[in-house]
C-alpha cells in the first residue's frame, strides 16, 4: 500500500545554511504510516502529479496553517493576498489528479475545507472561535510527557458513516483547531458530524470514496489514542478494496 500526502510550507531561519524554509510533513503521519505498514510519499508541487496519482493507492490531505483564499469560493479575496496559496498550487491539483484516477481521499482539517471548496462548496468563519480554536486548560500530556495545548469539543455523529465506523453513532469528543468551517456543503457530499453550535465537523461522499474530518485524528499517534487511529486503518482498507 502506498499513500500520498502533501507537504506544507514552514517558515525557517533564512540566515542559516540548513535551517531555511522547509516543506514539511507532520511526523504523526509518518509514524502512523509506519505503524500501519504503509508506504507514504509526499508531493511537493503539481508537476507530474498525475503520475503520482496513478502510482499511489490513496491521498491523505493534511491541514494547513494558511486558510483558503475566499476568492476560490466566490468570496472577497484576502487582503493582502496569500502569497503561497497552497489551495491553488497544490491542494486543488492533488484532489483533481487523485479523483480522476479514482483513488480515495481522506481530508483532515484544512484538507476537508479544500475538498469542500474543490467540489463546489463554500466556507465561512466559525461562529465561535473560542469553541473551535482557543486552547483549554489544563493541557493534556502526550505519550512522551509533553503538555500539548489542545481543545476538545463534543460532536454528534450520524449513523452509517465513516465517523460512526470509528466513534460509533451518537456523541464523541474530538480535538479541534480551526477558525474556518464548511458553509455550503459541496453537492454530492453528506454531513456526518456536527458540533453543538451547528458547525460541520465531517463530510463524506461514498460514491467518490472521499472522506473528511475537521479535527486532527493524526494526533492519535502522539496521544496514544487507538480510537482515532482507526480512521487511518479504515482509510487504508478502503484504498485496498479500490485497488482490486
Amino acid at each position, binding site marked *: 500500500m502506498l499513500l500520498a500526502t502533501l507537504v506544507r510550507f514552514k517558515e525557517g531561519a533564512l540566515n*542559516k*545554511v540548513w535551517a531555511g524554509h522547509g*516543506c514539511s510533513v507532520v511526523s504523526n503521519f509518518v509514524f502512523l504510516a509506519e505503524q500501519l505498514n504503509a508506504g507514504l510519499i*509526499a508531493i*511537493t508541487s503539481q508537476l507530474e502529479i498525475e503520475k*503520482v496519482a496513478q502510482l499511489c493507492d490513496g491521498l491523505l490531505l493534511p491541514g494547513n496553517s494558511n486558510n483558503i483564499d475566499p476568492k476560490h469560493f466566490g468570496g472577497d479575496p484576502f487582503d493582502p493576498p496569500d502569497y503561497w496559496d497552497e489551495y491553488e498550487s497544490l491542494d486543488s491539483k492533488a484532489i483533481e489528479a487523485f479523483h480522476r484516477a479514482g483513488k480515495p481521499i481522506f481530508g483532515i482539517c484544512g484538507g476537508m475545507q479544500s475538498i469542500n471548496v474543490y467540489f463546489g462548496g463554500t466556507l465561512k468563519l466559525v461562529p465561535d472561535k473560542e469553541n473551535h480554536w482557543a486552547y483549554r486548560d489544563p493541557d493534556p500530556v502526550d505519550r*512522551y510527557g509533553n503538555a500539548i495545548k489542545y481543545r476538545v469539543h463534543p460532536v454528534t455523529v450520524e449513523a452509517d458513516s465513516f465517523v460512526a465506523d470509528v466513534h460509533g453513532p451518537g456523541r464523541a469528543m474530538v*480535538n479541534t483547531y480551526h477558525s474556518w468551517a464548511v458553509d455550503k456543503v459541496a453537492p454530492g457530499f453528506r454531513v456526518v458530524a456536527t458540533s453543538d453550535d451547528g458547525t460541520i465537523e465531517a463530510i463524506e461522499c461514498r460514491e467518490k470514496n472521499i472522506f473528511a474530518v475537521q479535527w486532527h485524528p493524526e494526533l492519535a499517534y502522539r496521544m496514544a489514542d487507538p480510537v482515532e487511529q482507526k480512521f487511518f486503518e479504515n482509510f487504508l482498507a478502503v484504498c485496498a478494496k479500490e485497488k482490486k
Partner: protein
Amino acid sequence: MNIAILPRWRRGTLEKIWAGHSFSVANDFVSIANRYGIGLTCILTRFDVEHAAENCDGLIIPGGCSMGDPYEGGEEFDPPDLFALDDKVIDAFVRQGKPIFGICRGNQTINRFFGGTIYEFPNKPEHYFYNDPTPFDRYGNQIKHRIHHVNVEEGSFVHDAYGETRIITNSYHSFAVDQLAPCLTVVARTDDGVVEAIENKEMHIYGTQWHPELGYRMNEPLDMKLFENFFETCRKVAQEREG
C-alpha cells in the same frame, strides 16, 4: 520526470497541535525542481519503497545533522531510524540503476552505504565556522556560512558543472569521508585533504560535501549547473532504460 528525495527530521514546537516535529524537504530543493519542471516526491517510510522508486528517475539525498547525533537531540520522541530509511531507498535506486546525488550528509551516507567509513576530521573551523563578511541571498537575507577552496579532478561531474579545477564552495560539516568505498572515486578535496566530492560515473552516483542547492538562493548558476547535469543524466538513463 519525477525525482525522489529523502526527508530530514525537523524539530518543531511540541506544545502546539500542528507545529510538532516534522519530516522536511528544504524549500531550496522544491524551488529548484519547480524551476526545471521536475516533480519532486519525498519518500517518507520504508514500505513499498521499490514501488515508489519505479516511478522516479533519480534520487537526491540531502544534508542533515551530524552522523554522531542523528536526531538533533530529539529526546521527546522514539528516535526515527532515519538511516534505515536512507539505506532502504538507496538500495532500491541502485538496484533499479537510477542516478543518485548525495549532498553533505547524503554524500557521507552514499560512502557508508557502499562500504566506506566516515570520521570527524580535526580541522572543523575551516569547514564549519562562518566566514566574514557574509553574502546576501536573492531575497535580501544575509546568510551565515563558510566558504572554502576545493580542488577538482578534471573529467569529474564537478568539473563538468563548474568548468574549473579550483573552485570556491560553501561548507557546513564536521564529518567527512574517511575510508572510501571500493566502487567510488574522490574527485574533489580541500587544501587540507578533506574529501569534498565523490563519484562513480558508470553507476551514476555522485556526492558533494557542500550545499549546491543553496545556489538557488545565492543566484549561483554553476551550482545550478550541477543540478541541471544531474537531471539530464536522469533523463538520459531513463531513455536508455526504455530504449
